[in-house]
Structure formats: C-alpha cells, structure tokens
C-alpha cells in the first residue's frame, strides 16, 4: 500500500518538475499528466492530494513567480514579460497576477528591487501564496471543472 503511494508521489513530482521546467511553453494538462502516467482527471485529483492545489494553480504561481523575477530584475515591458513566462493574453496575466500577488504587475515593479538569493532558492521560496480572500480558481489551463471533482 505505502509503496504505491510513494511511487505515485514520485510520478506526480516528476510531472510537477516538468511544469517547472517548461512553464514558459504552452502546456497541455494531458501532456503533463502523461509524464506521471496518469489520465488527465486522475492526475488532477492526485496532484491536488499530494501538493494541496490544482496543477493549474501550481503552474500559475510558477509563471507569476517568474514574472515577478523579471519585473524586479529586467527592464522588459510588462507585456513582453507576460508572454516570456507562458501567458498567452495580457488580460489573463494581469488578472492572475493581481489575484495571486494582490497588486498589479506595474505597481509590483515600482515597489521591488532585485533580490540576492540564488535563483534556485528564489524559485522555491519566493513563489507567491495566493493573496488572502481572492482564492477563486480560473480555468485557462482547462482543468477547473475536473479539479472540482472529489
């Protein structure tokens, strides 16, 4: 029993790593699920059980974290950064950023300086938690409905 749990954890972790690696590319949940050798719906349920959030939300927070990094460290325009980190519309990017961080990308840029910790630590530790009170799910990764299943 527990060996099965460990094997499943490891496979879902491998799929999460794939999202971390390819966050800037268009990602299809079916392709990510296949990394874990799971069907789309089963993957979404397992991911949520293992990591406490949907793969869609995980990917959003990864992309927003990378956008925060680029806003702090570069002079690229907000629109360029939006596409750099894998969003396909600046409207979705601004809405998602505001929902997770609690302020707009431009306001965030004005208020934050470059950071010193190594990038690997920033990627692990600086990923934003969702701002309080606005934890609603959006569905651009196409999984919100499936994720709502028990």
């Amino acid at each position: 029993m527990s060996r099965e749990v460990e094997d499943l954890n490891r496979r879902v972790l491998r799929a999460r790593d794939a999202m971390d690696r390819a966050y800037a590319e268009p990602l299809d949940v079916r392709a990510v699920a296949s990394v874990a050798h799971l069907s789309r719906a089963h993957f979404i349920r397992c991911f949520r059980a293992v990591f406490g959030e949907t793969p869609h939300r995980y990917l959003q927070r990864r992309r927003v974290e990378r956008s925060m990094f680029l806003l702090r460290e570069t002079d690229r325009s907000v629109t360029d950064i939006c596409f750099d980190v894998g969003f396909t519309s600046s409207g979705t990017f601004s809405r998602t950023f505001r929902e997770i961080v609690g302020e707009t990308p431009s306001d965030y840029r004005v208020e934050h300086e470059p950071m010193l910790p190594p990038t690997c630590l920033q990627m692990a530790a600086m990923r934003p938690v969702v701002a309080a009170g606005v934890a609603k799910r959006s569905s651009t990764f196409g999984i919100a409905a499936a994720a709502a299943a028990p």
Partner: protein
Amino acid sequence: MITKLNATSIMVLDKDEALDFYVNKVGLEKGQDIKQGSYRWLTVRVPDDPGTEISLEEPGPPVHDEATAAQLRELITKGALGGLVFQSDDVRGLYETLKARGVTDFTQEPADRFYGTDMGIRDPFGNAIRILQPKKVAHAAKA
C-alpha cells in the same frame, strides 16, 4: 571554532539504488561501507575532496518507528525534504554526461545566473540536487 563539514546525510528509499545513482550517474565516489549489526553506514563523497561524507540513510527502525518511516518516505517522494548542492567546474559538460548516463529527471537545464551557471536534477527518490558552477570573479578589475 568549527573548521569543516564532516558529514551530512540524505534520506533515500534504498541504499543500494542510491549508491548506484550517486556513484555511477552523478559521479561521486563510494566512501565508507561499514556494517554493524543490522545497520549499514554507507557514504558517498566528492572525488578528491576527502573529509566530507554524505551518509545515505533509509527511514526505518531502530531510528524511526514504522509510522514515522512511512511519513518520511512520503515526504521524500514528494520532494519535500532537503537536498544537496554541489559545485562543478563545468556544469554544461556534466549535463551532457548525465544525459549520456541515462539521467532524465532534470528540474532545470543549465542556466546562467549572475552568480554562475547552475542546473537541477532529482535523485531516483525525489530529493533535489543542484549543481553550481560559480562565476569567476575578476578581482584585479576592482578599482
């Protein structure tokens, strides 16, 4: 005054599988392998850097009761426990070597940072390993 890191440890699910990965894939060397009763002190270390042993530890009795061991195994496979950070003089070369040796679990391909070049892999169990090639600092250039 503390002068050196003597030993550290990493939790693995299987010592033999870990030994094979860390020696034959990552390129560390086998350190000490001492059996005392049911306990096996098994270490790996960085080649040409004696004195810092990385002990490969399995959750289980007598250190952990079975329920605790099960929790630890879950955390290992979720990637939720600490990992190791190594230094290399050629991260991109090592990346090619690892791929040729069949390593597929890269968390990050080599990337240039302000402090150097780094990459990330996972061991077979879920532990994160990072490898850093620090940027050479031109001390003489400082005015």
